[in-house]
């Protein structure tokens, strides 16, 4: 490295970064915010605001769902462009925590600048970013630099109300081969999403009937009382019409389970019969795999975990914060599902006499390279443990240089 040119290298590196940040391809998604209803297991019909994915703006050919459609962005797409159609009576917008929002240039008009919220007539703000007005005639674009990982998109307008009403969904970018979520992490044979949310039907009723707001029946969301607890938009109901299973690979093969929590509360999904290995947190690979039974997932967080069950049957996954009832209906409900390995629908090894097998060790990870994530230095050498001393920090891997020195030449980054 030629130190005399250091300033030039830095400037060029910055220019190179800016170039690299301009991705070659974008995933274009046409989302429409609209009203929908769901029937809860106790018969209550609740009004929601959800998202549909249309083939084009105005096509109206997507189904409105809560959670909204899970967006999968391919390996080659560096940008996620959401073109929003607002069929609700109020303004909405989109944000994706964890993804960098990009300025959207508009020909012949001011740019759309994320983080510059539309102001109300009285000068106040109710959004984190620019809004899409109700009944917009042209799509409003929200653009994000797509990073590898698992994210939640949701409305950034009046979020205390709109997120609760159902304006949320998952967004995932993974490798093109669909078998490995992050570099250095183990491959998987199947993928499952567990999207958690809650419903306070009193809020939905007030909003649906125009009775929410100053001077109305419900003036705020402070007295939040969830009555229903949903997984992938449905509460568990023990009747034949409801499929409680999430199919996972068996025989010791791995399945990635992507957890999303769009409820305002911390939820704790807990597994029975097998364990989970956490590999990523908010789309960031964890430095070391974490072998756990329960997953503490606060509001708006995502986690990626791997499971590796062996025997056929159902492995119960339930919320240990006990969101396990459906309103006032008797029996268990709410956040209960089964990770199911194809085979007879019994609990693994339900018949006695089956010799217990030593379970497979948890999925192991190599220390990641190139992702910029390194284990934090620990003070284990200073701890002075009884017995053998720790052998020191695992060798930190050196990230390969990601900056370029100039547009046409590639120099070695600092080591």
């Amino acid at each position, binding site marked *: 490295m030629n130190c005399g040119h250091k300033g030039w290298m830095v400037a060029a590196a910055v220019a190179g970064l800016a170039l690299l940040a301009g991705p070659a391809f974008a995933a274009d998604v046409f989302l429409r915010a609209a009203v929908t209803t769901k029937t809860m297991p106790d018969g209550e019909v609740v009004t929601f605001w959800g998202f549909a994915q249309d083939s084009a703006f105005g096509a109206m050919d997507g189904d409105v769902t809560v959670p909204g459609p899970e967006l999968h962005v391919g390996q080659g797409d560096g940008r996620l462009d959401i073109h929003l159609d607002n069929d609700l009576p109020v303004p909405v917008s989109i944000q994706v925590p964890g993804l960098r929002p990009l300025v959207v240039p508009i020909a012949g008009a001011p740019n759309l600048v994320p983080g510059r919220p539309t102001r109300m007539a009285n000068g106040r703000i109710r959004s984190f970013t620019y809004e899409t007005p109700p009944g917009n005639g042209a799509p409003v674009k929200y653009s994000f630099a797509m990073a590898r990982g698992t994210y939640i998109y949701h409305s950034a307008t009046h979020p205390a109300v709109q997120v609760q009403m159902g304006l949320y969904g998952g967004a995932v970018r993974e490798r093109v081969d669909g078998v490995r979520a992050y570099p250095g992490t183990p491959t998987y044979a199947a993928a499952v999403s567990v999207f958690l949310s809650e419903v306070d039907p009193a809020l939905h009723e007030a909003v649906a009937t125009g009775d929410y707001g100053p001077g109305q029946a419900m003036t705020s969301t402070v007295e939040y009382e969830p009555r229903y607890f949903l997984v992938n938009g449905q509460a568990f109901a023990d009747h034949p019409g409801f499929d409680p299973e999430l199919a996972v690979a068996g025989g010791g093969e791995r399945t990635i389970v992507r957890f999303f929590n769009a409820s305002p509360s911390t939820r704790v999904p807990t597994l029975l019969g097998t364990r989970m290995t956490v590999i990523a947190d908010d789309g960031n690979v964890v430095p070391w795999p974490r072998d756990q039974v329960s997953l503490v997932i606060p509001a708006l967080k995502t986690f990626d975990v791997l499971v590796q069950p062996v025997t056929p049957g159902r492995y119960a996954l339930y919320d240990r914060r006990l969101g396990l*009832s459906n309103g006032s209906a008797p029996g268990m409900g709410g956040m209960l599902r089964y990770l199911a390995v194809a085979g007879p629908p019994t609990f693994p090894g339900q018949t006695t006499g089956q010799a217990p097998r030593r379970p497979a060790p948890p999925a192991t990870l190599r220390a990641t390279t190139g992702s910029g994530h390194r284990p934090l230095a620990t003070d284990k050498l200073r701890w002075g443990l009884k017995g053998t001393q720790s052998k020191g920090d695992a060798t930190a891997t050196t990230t390969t240089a990601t900056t370029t020195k100039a547009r046409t030449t590639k120099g070695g980054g600092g080591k």
Partner: protein
Amino acid sequence: MRTRNESVIRGGLVVLAALTLSLPTGAGAMIQGSEGTLAGSVRTFQMSARDGYITTGDGSAIYMWGYTDADNGDGMQYPGPTLIANAGDLVVIELTNHLPAEVGPVSMVFPGQEGVTVGGGSPGLVTREADTGQTVTYTFVAWEPGTYLYNSGTDIDLQVEMGLVGALIVRPSTAGQAYDHPDTAYDREVLFLLTELDPQIHYLVESGWGNLVHRLDPLPVLWLINGRAAPDTMLPAGIPWLPTQPYDCMPRMHPGERLLLRFVGAGRDLHPYHTHGNHMRQIARDGRMLESVAGLGPDLGELAFTQTVAPGETVDAIFTWTGEKLGWDIYGHAPGDPMEPGEYGPDHGKAFPVTMAEEQDLTFGQFWSGSPFLGAAADLPPGEGGFNPTSGYYYMWHSHNEKEMVNFDVFPGGMMTMLVIEHPDVPIP
């Protein structure tokens, strides 16, 4: 230097009489529980689910459902027996439902254990269950040492609230260690099984109005460690007037010892458990060492003075205390005096940094022995002190969610206890 009229306790005889009055005598260095019946490597527990009442620090009697084991006869206990097994045991648990018929079925689940097989009973939603009078048998190999939770798998939100929870401890092949690594060695261990309680739910169930229970809106006003609300946490284990709450939580240690804390989140709320006196070092979560690479031991454990204990989660941590960083000799030694075991050497002989005020200018807490030095007592005005017969150092260990340190809004109470650092000559059973 020691001031006048202080007496340093030497030998245990002087102290034992005082000990029997107010300090736990049966707790021991290891956690109490049920070891079942061992035949070869098959360890069998005969358990029942029963109903009964517990007493809380404000004098309430609360109706509960709890697990119990064969040693308890017709009684129930809260929490359920701490099941203790050795790694590699084939654990067989026969659960018989002796709850009132209107309760319906009951069961047990073992989060963290793999390969659990179930026989008998009838199919429930997450496991097989025992109907009234029936027996269901759960079998698994306890492959991995660690701290685990068990609770009911039936009507989970109600049955967990009503008390059907307990801990399972699997010991490694090397005694005195929590896991298969010498860095997890300990001198004493303490269980912290954390729950909360909404008495309204229990009153409704007791009165036969269980269908009116507001399962989604519990409002806990009582918080418990090992089934007791402070100050009962500090009563001895097995005390006769708490027959359904046999476990205590009164950690005592000598300087230099390693105390293993086994946290079990058995309720539905998260609790930030706070250890005054020092940080603790996390060593494991959910029964697995916080280990980066196999063989390194718990190198990923962080120092924490507040440990979040989430429902369904278990955490193990090691706490040590030597008086390090106080900056003065905790025994009031002169520099030439011999060292005590576990003493922090660099502070040996350092003078107490302040001049104590006269008694007329002081107010006293009940744990003040009259002297700032460990194991030393001194003059106190009549009626003062008395809660510290061994002249130890008392550190409040509690949920740092402050509202949880009450019994029905009355402080002190709830999820709280004391750690006592005892002079090395004070025997801790």
